[in-house]
């Protein structure tokens, strides 16, 4: 049986990054089918326990499609999401999980192409480091 490739959990945001992921589909920009999205209101609302839970459940990688500077809620969103990333990666290290398995990038509402590129390169990284 062929290796189906790594499984990635994507946290997208309702108003900013999820529209970009929809747009990627609309434009038939293909990426790995084993990337699954859970929508949250804001990337600064992602709890580290959800990320850790995803790894416990068998996800190979978690990608945070962050609001970045477009966040409709908070101008400090980028820093706050980055802090969540740092805190979570610390927990990952403590549990022997490669911190690079958690990736974050700002995805604006029209950033469909960057999203697809990130998922492809992340998937490649996860495949090579499995």
């Amino acid at each position, binding site marked *: 049986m062929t290796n189906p490739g790594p499984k990635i959990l994507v946290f997208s945001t309702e108003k900013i990054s999820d529209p970009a992921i929809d*747009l990627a589909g609309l434009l038939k920009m293909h990426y790995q089918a084993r990337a699954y999205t859970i929508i949250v209101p804001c990337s600064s*609302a992602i709890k580290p326990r959800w990320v850790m839970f995803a790894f416990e459940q068998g996800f190979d990688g978690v990608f945070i499609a962050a609001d970045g500077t477009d966040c409709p*809620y908070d101008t400090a969103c980028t820093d706050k999401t980055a802090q969540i990333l740092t805190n979570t990666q610390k927990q990952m290290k403590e549990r022997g999980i490669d911190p690079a398995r958690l990736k974050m990038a700002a995805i604006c509402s029209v950033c469909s192409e960057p999203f697809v590129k990130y998922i492809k390169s992340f998937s490649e990284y996860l495949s090579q480091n499995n």
Partner: protein
Amino acid sequence: MSNKIGVYICHCGNNISEYVDVERVRDSIENEKGVHIARTTMFACADSAQTEIIDDIKDNALDGIVIASCSPKLHLQTFREVAKRAGLNPYNYVQVNIREQGSWAHSDDPEGATEKAISLVKAGIGRTRFSKSLEHFTISAKNSVLIIGAGIAGMRAAIELAEMGTRVYLIEREHFVGGRLSQWGVLCSLNETGKELISRIYKRLKELDNITLFTGAEVISKAGSSGNFEVEIKITPRHVKTKCDPEGLQKAIDACPVEVPDEFNFYLTNRKAIFKNFDSEFPEAPVINMENCNRCGECLKYCDSIDLDQKTEIIKLEIGAIQVCTGFDPYEPKEGEFGYKTIDNVITLQQLKRLVELNEKQLFLNGKQIHNIAFIYCVGSRQFGKINGNNQYCSRYCCTVAIHSSLIVGKKYNDISCLHFTRGVRTYGKQELIYDEASQKGDIFFHFDENSPPTVEKSGNKTIVKVNDVYTDQIELGVEADLVVLVSGMIPRKDNSVVAILKTPVGRDGFLNEIHPKLRPVETVIDGVFISGAAQGPKNIEETVNSTLSAASKVNALICNEEIKLEPTIATINEETCEWCGKCLEACPFNAISQITHNGKKIASIIETNCKGCGICTPVCPVDAIDIIGYTNVEIESMIIELAK
């Protein structure tokens, strides 16, 4: 908690089922815990399907539903209404996106798309099991709108909204209103010129006290969200005060030594650094373009209304909604495309329209009188086959405008004959009558296909258009033309910087993208931002006004009550586990958290009217005592469990 769930998997015609095996998805989830009904449906959004879902909910006392179809941005509200009509709380409904993030994204991998759809539906079922019944709450919203672009779309929207009681800020990047319409002469199916129509609309606009017009103005930043946006507007000065002596101003214009190509006339003529495009243009005062002005001071000798030291201003506006009416640019052919810029009597359709306005009794170009015109159609549009370019769309208005121009030319100058080299004439609807009129007048229509476009060549002093005409069995025909008019279509605005600020999506064609072309044609994925007119794709004037009035209605419906219904998905505190530390208060951008005493213990409390449900307070809690309703640990983790299987 929902224990009796109905699951519906949509074919979406074949948008989903072409790549996702929807029957397999249904078979895979029908025995999931809590699933009472599992069906596939051709179009879940169709009236008949909605009725079937309502009947299922009522007949089976369902307490939760999952619909796997398109993006929730398109139909979340539709299906919440279905739930409501069946007596089910709309928050016991979960939409699963298996189209944009399923079949379309993985059309190269049907097996992967199907497996993904199964996992996503299972995750949706998992989430539904833990869903709660909720009610909306409301926030205050400003009943004011920013309309970007003062062409016919923006001006009509402004009037309509102002008449409905909304405060309107209308901004125009140029120093005069009217947009493209003010450049056109007599309009098709009207006995009125573009500038006359604009003048009429402008006069009505000035009668309404609740419209403020800023010219030379553009958006430079946007913050906030639907109902409560804050925007910054940069206003470039016109350097001429509005009250001025017309005679003195004319002398000042005459004295200006600077001449530059005139963009209003598509560079057929020159203008001064101080200028007005035509006498009846609005606002009444001319403008000095400081990019052209050499500050020689000659104009100051004749007119004390001129102020070369006026400064750029930046103002802030608080508004509830934004309507984008930024219009289009005409396609400009590449150098050499059908002889453009390499043969001196080849011009565009837009240039012809201006040329007709500039020539009264006889039509001249470069000093040569015109007796016959060859129109070459679909230049910059429908670029297939051997026609290079990425503009695959039809620009809709150009067939009509070309034929209408031929009629105008015929009536105005008597002795001009017109030849049309088309790819099939698209004068749809009532516009067909002018096609018939042109044929009756004696215009000759040739037909070429995309693999054999016409050529334009110079032979001595003559310009020859050659075509392999479909109507005469592809025989090559050659005609001499005094003037070749390239019937060029519409393209998105070249300077579309406002898109980057508003973050409104654009489609593959570069025009602004609506949520759905048929069902939500003027809304964007950015809540509170609406689009209309040719900014979202080629449209004629009628279609532009239809679209802009539609958008104005949507704007009004959103903000006219000065409150917006918001999702009840706000933060909630676990009173048992919270041990007030204040970190949530520090994190909250909306001052939505206060400290209270509960059973003798200090804890956090949510101020519901301030909370926007962003969830930023949740990860900072050291004891995990805050959740966002709808995004609780149990809901998110139930989805993760299903997706990880």
